[in-house]
């Protein structure tokens, strides 16, 4: 350990720890650890430890000893926080006529959860976990791997909760069609299932390619909203199992899509479906790898915006609709912004793996300005659409979701470099898309109900 590193490490000891523990090997080869008081002298690179009384517990002079400083703060009924420790190795020599022991550290290992959050600390241990389980497999002759119950494994592998990104645009397309007089509930269900399958296939394929590219391994700060499912990285499922799962759900989705095309409007639905499948697959798959080129947001905008809304509309109404296209734009922008914000904590891992997302390419001010600009455009589209009558007037209620964008802006501004503090920000951004989409759908439902109940509804209900 360099003198500068020793000074830095020793500087904060007295303020952060109440005592030291000296650990050494006794005459019988057993470790023996004894607590004692201490005073750090950072400028000299030493720690003065109070001598320990008793021959049986006296630390040795000469051999390497381990001096540990450890602290936690109990939180009754909850657990504890403020976990931190510093572990130093070095030699002791007696000073002050044997009343003290001068410890000169040569090596250090430390962790403070306020500097490296527990989740990141754990994530850095994944290679060790694999080494241990691989060795255990060799020793026992059976495959030792981590496991989860099938339900939780499926939920984690497919990232099922993100299905709101599919439910909103398909629900919107169906709502537009319903207002236009086209409504078939069984077609609506099949469209939702097909869209969900393609979305889940995309999620699983995304993990396959992120594992293959090294992006998952390079990312040590994943959160529940970013960094992928990590089921391959953790050894919960193999690459092959994930490939089969991806192909399976894609096949179901495409099969239903093809059936809908045959039953309703073949070429329009085939073309929309093909565009969606193309975007979905090449989102992370080579050679295009759209997300690696900073085109992920455009892909997501198209796939979870116009493609899904127009597809759902086409299945119901068997025709194209400019209104459905217009309605898809704000939800497409907002879902693209979900990806855009979720890429922020993944920047270091993505950059290391050559995944040049917008968050990797742009500076913090540019990313935040981009967010504000895109949110503004999304809600201006809602406002102008509702006022002009392109969208039904009741859809103006979607503006009620605007306040959800403010904490996202503030969170990006204040916690841009803190992946775990960005978690509530990412959650709020997902809520922004979901709330806006659901309010747009509600606006359509209001217009639809008003049209049924009132012969000539007032303009604000049309």
């Amino acid at each position, binding site marked *: 350990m360099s003198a500068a590193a020793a000074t830095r490490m020793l500087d904060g000891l007295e303020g952060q720890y109440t005592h030291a523990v000296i650990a050494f090997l006794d005459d019988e080869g057993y*470790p023996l650890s004894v607590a004692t008081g201490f005073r750090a002298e950072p400028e000299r690179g030493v720690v003065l430890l109070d001598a320990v009384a*008793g021959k049986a517990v006296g630390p040795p002079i000469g051999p390497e000893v381990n001096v540990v400083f450890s602290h936690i703060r109990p939180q009754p009924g909850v657990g504890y926080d403020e976990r931190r420790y510093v572990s130093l190795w070095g030699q002791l020599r007696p000073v002050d006529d044997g009343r003290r022991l001068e410890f000169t550290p040569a090596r250090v290992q430390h962790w403070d959860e306020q500097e490296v959050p527990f989740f990141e600390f754990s994530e850095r241990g994944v290679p060790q976990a694999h080494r241990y389980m691989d060795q255990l497999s060799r020793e026992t002759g059976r495959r030792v791997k981590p496991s989860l119950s099938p339900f939780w494994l499926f939920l984690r592998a497919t990232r099922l909760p993100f299905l709101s990104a599919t439910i909103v645009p398909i629900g919107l397309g169906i709502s537009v069609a319903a207002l236009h007089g086209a409504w078939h509930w069984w077609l609506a269900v099949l469209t939702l299932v097909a869209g969900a399958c393609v979305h889940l296939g995309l999620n699983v394929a995304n993990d396959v390619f992120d594992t293959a590219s090294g992006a998952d391994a390079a990312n040590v700060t994943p959160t529940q909203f970013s960094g992928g499912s990590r089921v391959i990285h953790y050894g*919960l499922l193999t690459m092959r199992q994930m490939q089969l799962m991806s192909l399976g759900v894609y096949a179901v989705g495409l099969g239903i899509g093809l059936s809908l095309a045959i039953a309703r409007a073949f070429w329009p639905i085939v073309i929309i479906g093909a565009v969606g499948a193309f975007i979905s697959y090449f989102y992370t798959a080579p050679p295009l790898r759209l997300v690696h080129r900073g085109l992920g947001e455009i892909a997501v905008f198209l796939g979870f915006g116009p493609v899904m809304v127009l597809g759902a509309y086409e299945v119901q109404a068997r025709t194209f609709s400019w209104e459905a296209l217009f309605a898809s734009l704000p939800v497409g922008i907002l879902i693209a912004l979900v990806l855009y914000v979720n890429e922020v904590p993944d920047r270091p891992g993505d950059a290391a793996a050559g995944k040049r997302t917008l968050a990797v390419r742009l500076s913090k001010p540019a990313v935040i300005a981009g967010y504000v600009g895109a949110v503004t455009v999304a809600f201006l589209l809602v406002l102008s659409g509702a006022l002009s009558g392109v969208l039904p007037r009741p859809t103006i209620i979607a503006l009620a979701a605007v306040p959800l964008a403010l904490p996202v802006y503030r969170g990006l501004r204040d916690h841009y470099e803190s992946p775990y503090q960005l978690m509530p920000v990412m959650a709020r951004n997902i809520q922004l898309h979901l709330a806006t989409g659901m309010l747009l759908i509600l606006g359509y439902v209001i217009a639809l109900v008003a049209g049924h109940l009132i012969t000539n509804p007032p303009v604000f209900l049309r």
Partner: protein
Amino acid sequence: MGVLPEPIEELLNAALVAELTVIDDRGRPVTHPLIPLYDGEKIHMTSSVLFSRKLEHIKANPKVSLSISDPSAVSVERFRRATIQGDAVVDDSDLHSGWERKVLPLWRVKEPAIDFFLGKRVALPLFFERGIIEITPRRAFLWHDGRTEVPPTVYELAGAAR
């Protein structure tokens, strides 16, 4: 009444953290803060596979030492300090559920929030793949008022747990 003197048992049952010292592959002591769980005969600790170097070290050399030293992590009426030397074995025959069957009831008593965290297993699957460290005490040192500038009382326990 277990194999350890009562004042040390009380410490073990109250401590939220203890320092476990093992011997690494180069024969050097390495210390890890862990939660100690005592069943009256053996001291149990668990380690996630994420931080499993200590398990490897114990398998190679079972000699360990455990100290309870932190006043803020031990809630007893009159603070004291103790160190226990012993022989450890690692039970990693069922990383997924073995520790739940053998150790979770003891853990739950000391840290009720463990059930909440275990409910979030899907978020941290590797953290809950855990090996069990079982320590058979052979010698214990007790500093009655926590001051180690006075010699400890030494208890020879070899054979007590057998």
